[in-house]
């Protein structure tokens, strides 16, 4: 009986550990400017359970904090790709990419160069 309780307890604790309410993750998302930043971050917040999303224009790093009980990284990535931004794991569809503003066409080298001058 004792052993059973112990095992159950262990399972319970590992479960609570795994279900982190404030899980931190970081991933790379392509984009070029402040408009992209707001588009990417908004897409993250559209995902229920995301508490904080900060995308850096310079490093292209998206820092996330989310509740694992409500969402996971895959869902968030899918939403980011859904508004037209590539991540390492998930390329945005042409349709989604087509929806971003012309000045944000980050796959285009000319656009990239334009933003480097800023």
């Amino acid at each position, binding site marked *: 009986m004792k052993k059973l309780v112990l095992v159950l307890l262990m399972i319970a604790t590992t479960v609570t*550990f795994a279900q982190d309410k404030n899980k931190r993750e970081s991933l790379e998302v392509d984009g070029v400017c402040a408009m992209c930043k707001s588009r990417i971050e908004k897409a993250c917040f559209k995902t229920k359970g995301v508490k904080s999303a900060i995308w850096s224009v310079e490093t292209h790093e998206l820092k996330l904090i989310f509740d694992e009980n409500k969402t996971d990284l895959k869902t968030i990535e899918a939403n980011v790709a859904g508004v037209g931004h590539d991540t390492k794991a998930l390329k945005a569809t042409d349709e989604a990419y087509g929806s971003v503003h012309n000045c944000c066409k980050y796959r285009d080298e000319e656009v990239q160069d334009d933003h480097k001058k800023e």
Partner: protein
Amino acid sequence: MRKLLILLCFVPFVMLGQNQITGIIHEANPDTKQQPLFGANLIWLGTSVGTSTDIDGQFTIPFKPEYKQLVISYVGFKSDTLTITTAKPIMHYLNPTSDLDEVIVQSRKKASSRSYLRAQNTILVSSAELLKAACCNLSESFETNPSIDVNFSDAVTGTKQIKMLGLSSPYILIATENIPSIRGASQAFGLSFIPGTWVESIQITKGAGSVVNGFESIAGQINAELVKPSTDNAFFVNLYGASSTRLELNTHFNTEVSEKWSTGLYLHGNTHQEKHDVNADGFMDMPIYSQVNVMNRWQYTDPEKGFVSFVNLRYLRDDKQSGQLDFDPDTDKLTTNAWGSEIDTKRYELSAKLGYVNPEIPWQSLGVQFALSNHKQESYFGLNQYDIEHTSIYSNVIYNSIIDDSRHKIKTGINFTYDAYDEFVIAQNFARTERSFGGFFEYSFDNLELFTLTAGLRVDSHNLLGEFITPRVHMRYSPWSKSAFKASVGRGKRSANIFAENQNLFASSRAISILNTTGAIYGLDPEIAWNYGVSYLQGFNLFDRAADITFDFYRTDFQNQVVVDLENAQEVSFYNLEGDSYANSFQVELNYNVFEHFNLRTAYKFYDVKTQYQTGKLAKPLTPKHRVFGNVSYETEIKNNSNWKFDLTYNWLSEQRFSLTNNNPIQYQLDDYSDPVGTLNTQITRVFSPKFEVYLGGENITNVRQNNPIVSADNPFGSSFDTNFVYGPIFGSMYYAGLRYKLK
């Protein structure tokens, strides 16, 4: 997902808290300005763990013991690699590359700027702006800022007072490091008790401020951040001398005591011992004085646990003497031998702050503030004796968090204040104690693009003001590029310290009368006002150079005000407002970067400030209807670590109404209005190296003077004597020189 969970159940799983390092990256520039680098990249060598700095040059990067080498790089700068052994905060300077095979386009951070993103109409004044004038103390640090008006309060004490939106400083909440500090007994001279070199930056918020700092602000809030032991220079000295024989000395010493503790000792002394009488009216144009001001700060920083704390101790002693040239305090004090005045102030302060930011959850933080001060002023003005002692306690607990996600932020907390006043006015004692306890809640929403909203509410219980609520709302809307429409509305309430705030009136023969007797403060009721404001900021490019223009309009409507009625030249009466009292203020400001290193700031202001007096609805005395402001600054290219800086500021004020003098004898009657007055200030700074610079300046170089600032100067004990009809400079032009020497 479910499979993953089941798997996880069998894998013992431990989350280790990740350590973090915070820091700030600056440009190592020879003109020694702290120029934070925005967007510098940091990466741990051999890993993909990295980050970049924000607009203030600040960064946070995860830290593990196995990370050793931190690479800092930025376009146009030499990359540096630091060896990191502990999670101490990093302060690093990057050197610009000198190879000229590439052209680097850089934007310089402006000395003072308005925020496009904040909901509040806040102007940030950086240390660079503060160096544009000698600004020996806080009251002089607004000379280059068009939003604040600086003028003399009277012809004898030499005190500069500030106004905002047409209202004098009691209606502005003035705080140092977010602790309300210039209030009560220190209202009249408090700005001159904060040395300029102690000030790191200033934030000026027009209109209703945040509810976090209390219910007292009506026209706006000014917050001065002071230099901090961990970031200020290890050693700093500033020496200043003026042609009026005013001398000032500032020294800062900062040192690390241990890994987490640092301390700073800041000494300020100023003295002026020569009597001047340029206008030959028998009175000194400025007081003779001396001040000793000492502050000791202790800072504790533990980034791993997320703690930062400050403890400050301060002592001030300030002695002024003014009045007739031949006045001798030893023999003539409180007699009619000669007219003179002495104001001696002693002040002790202790304040402490503790901040905790959850290292795991960046949006969660808790701040605790506590301040204790004792302010004692003993003074007399001619035959009028005025003493005040004010002991004050301020404490505040504030908690920051989010609702759902970081677009919805909340601030909530409680504060407690205690003020004990003991006054001796001419021949009467006044004593009162004020206690208030309140809670606040502020919600801000940012949709990350166009729209920000901040709504705050306070509920306070005050032993003299009663129970009341203070709502304040700010919003920002940016429909197109580089634009910001802002609107704010808010309520403020305060008890008027009629004597402390109007001390200048003691330097006259006016008889004092208080017409109401039923109120809780000197028989008067608390002041209540609503402030409404709209502003529009637009950045644009003109001939390929950056420019921005701001229009703002504010209205302050008093529901009750303690009216200071000077319309009878031999009397001052205080009474509760019956009827209208409002202040309308319109301002347009243009900033333009004309060419490289050459900046222009110009502004026009219109004031319409009227109050219902017993004799009718009149414009507020000594408030110009129009003000024109211009400032140009130019810096030469930096060569061999040295360069020149030039600054020129022009101020023009239209005619100002004098309160009525028609019941004075004919020779002591003034016109209805003053003359317009324009003044020109300039300063040249020569930077020799990052360590050493010298400055030379002139105030009022066109030597503009108000000729007869004192009414009845020839008969100072007669019933018409008054030193308060001051609208312009009394002393004429003044030249000064100084040096700054610092060791990092």
